[in-house]
């Protein structure tokens, strides 16, 4: 593959991924944040990602959230050491609730300055 064709391929791939992510975001089913909060605690998401979704040495920061498709995939077929959540444990509808809750958490850092 030439340098030029490689660049073209990368552009197409990036475009396709961006489009896919955007569609997945758009396609996020409507969830219930209150139910999601209860699930977030009862299913132990807080253990590694903290109650605030800010992550820890054990799990990544969840805010601002991934696109729904990536969020769903990470639960079903996780990367790194996160354990898998099969549909028997968390249904798609419950994951939508979780997603609604995570989306409701504060997304930006405080404005304080540390030194």
């Amino acid at each position, binding site marked *: 593959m030439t340098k030029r064709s490689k660049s073209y391929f990368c552009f197409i791939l990036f475009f396709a991924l961006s489009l896919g992510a955007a569609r997945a975001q758009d396609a996020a089913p409507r969830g219930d944040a209150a139910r999601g909060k209860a699930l977030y605690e009862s*299913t132990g998401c807080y253990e590694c990602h*903290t109650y605030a979704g800010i992550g820890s040495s054990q799990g990544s920061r969840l805010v601002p959230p991934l696109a729904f498709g990536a969020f769903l995939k990470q639960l079903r077929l996780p990367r790194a050491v996160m*354990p898998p959540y099969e549909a*028997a444990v968390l249904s798609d509808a419950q994951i939508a609730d979780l997603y609604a809750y995570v989306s409701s958490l504060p997304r930006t850092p405080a404005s304080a300055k540390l030194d």
Partner: protein
Amino acid sequence: MPDPIVPIPRRLFLAAAASVPTLAASGAAAQPQAPATPGKSIPATPAAEEDLAPEIAKITIRDPGSDFMVDVLKTLDLDYIATVPGSSFRGLHESLINHGGNRKPEILTCLHEDSAVALAHGYAKSAGKPMAVLVHGVVGLQHASMAIYNAFADQAPILVLAGNLQATAARRGGAEAQHSAHDQGAMVRDFVKWDEQPTSLQDFAEGTVRAYDIATTAPTAPVLVVCDAQAQEEPVAADERAQLRIPTLKERHAPVGDNAALRQAAQWLTGAANPVIFVDHYPRGEKAGADLAALAEALQAAVVNARGQLIFPNRHPLHQTERAAEVLRQADVILALEAIDFFSLLVTMPDRVGARDAPRVPAAAKVIRLGLTDTMTRANYGLYDRYAAADLAISGDAAASLPVLVEEVKRIGLPTSAAARGKALAAASSALLGRARSEALYGWDASPIATARTSVEVWNRIRHDDWVLASEQQWLSDWPSRLWDFDKAYRSTGNAGAAGVGYNAAAAIGSALANKKLGRLTVAFAGDGDYLMAPGVMWTAAHHQIPLLMIVHNNRGYHQEVMHVQRMADRRSRGVDRIHIGTKIEDPNIDFAKIAQGYGVHAEGPVSHPAELGPALDRALAVVRRGMPALIDVLGQPR
């Protein structure tokens, strides 16, 4: 049922009988030996009772063997002896406080042997020398054993003394028999560097001085000396005492690695495109630290601290611990200093179903191992883990060898391109700090309190002091190591060694005791599960006026285990709604402040809102600066 007849040991009987005429003739029958230090003297026997002197002499003792044992301990550089009292060393205990005047060593009263040893563990790391710990026969040593294991894994020198009654026929039965053994060392032999069960006072003198010598010679470690109760309690005749000899401890020099091997190492390191220095159980001393920095700078090499060790300053431009995976992946020469878990430096295995070994370094990378740590490898326990061979292994004390290595590296010199490498590492290090400061602000106002927020609130209040973090910090997602300025190796005392719980609070108090003398402010974090193993150690801090800011990171659970059980439940797709069973510490929630207050310690909490944390810390630190311990229970995000 009549009391059982207690046989008077023959030696004791003869000593008492022999002393009778002399005592009677001199008229000084009941004059006690003057204590080594001023104190209340026992009144002389009234004249009317002089005729009782022979009988009294039969049931009293002068010049007990334990006085000589104290004389032995006083020849060693021991400031303290931590103990939970036990009858198997009652003679030695009495000699410590009366014959020895409770000075060098001074008794520290503890409420659990595990805490006594952990306290000595923390003390050794901050004082740079051992403390003695005196434990009860068998059961006391059993209590102490986990903490001894931690200290062995962490290579902390401790002189452990255990009571015992060796002679079976001299035991009164019951507890005295149950708390005696023919070979107490068997209990801990796999994780002490040396042990001795002396059978005479001369053996005790030689065994104890030798034990101290071995404990303090690198690689340093705990040692055990068993103190026989009969030897403690029987008198020592003057002529016998005159024969006893206490060996003098002499200076010992650490071995420097082979010169040719160090030259080879210097060749590889100076020729490397991406050299990495991995620092594990390297000493925390000032000279050792300066030599390490000199080597890193001479090589323009990335430096990675072993997890939790924080030996190399975290804001040095060449410090790359948080980028360890990346720099190791790119490394072509790696120098490992005093590495204990050497295999894990080179290979990782993620906690996933079907996981396999995954290399952390390129197959072509040359690996140099310099140190003495692997001379402590033992057969049974997994401290030294799986085997991996270095391309160049140099048996020599790393700190003693580094000046030679630095000299050789400077003699060879570096290509001019090395300066660019150093600049790139400095930029990466600086970017990491900036990123950490930004990340810390997520969840800043969250309740329970974010671990980053707790770390910042503490840091802002101690940064202008000469401070020490005397605990592990993984409970707080390692935020202190990301945000605080660990500019000197003594700022951190590292970790427990073998991850045995109950370490942090006790070790922090030991460190604080050493720091008190050095004028340093000590802070520590302990997870609630870890802290609850031995909260009574706070009483020891209050009783002995040891200043320390103790923060309980309260996530109301054995959180590591919450995550492990959840991982199992998820892998098995059985739901996670029952993982709290056996893992959570709630219902009722524990009131840590009330417990600490019960031990006489200033305490507040649970503090669950970040706005309340700063003022609570201010009040606690005011107490600490007055020389007393304080505790804050912080209800935090889980990690």
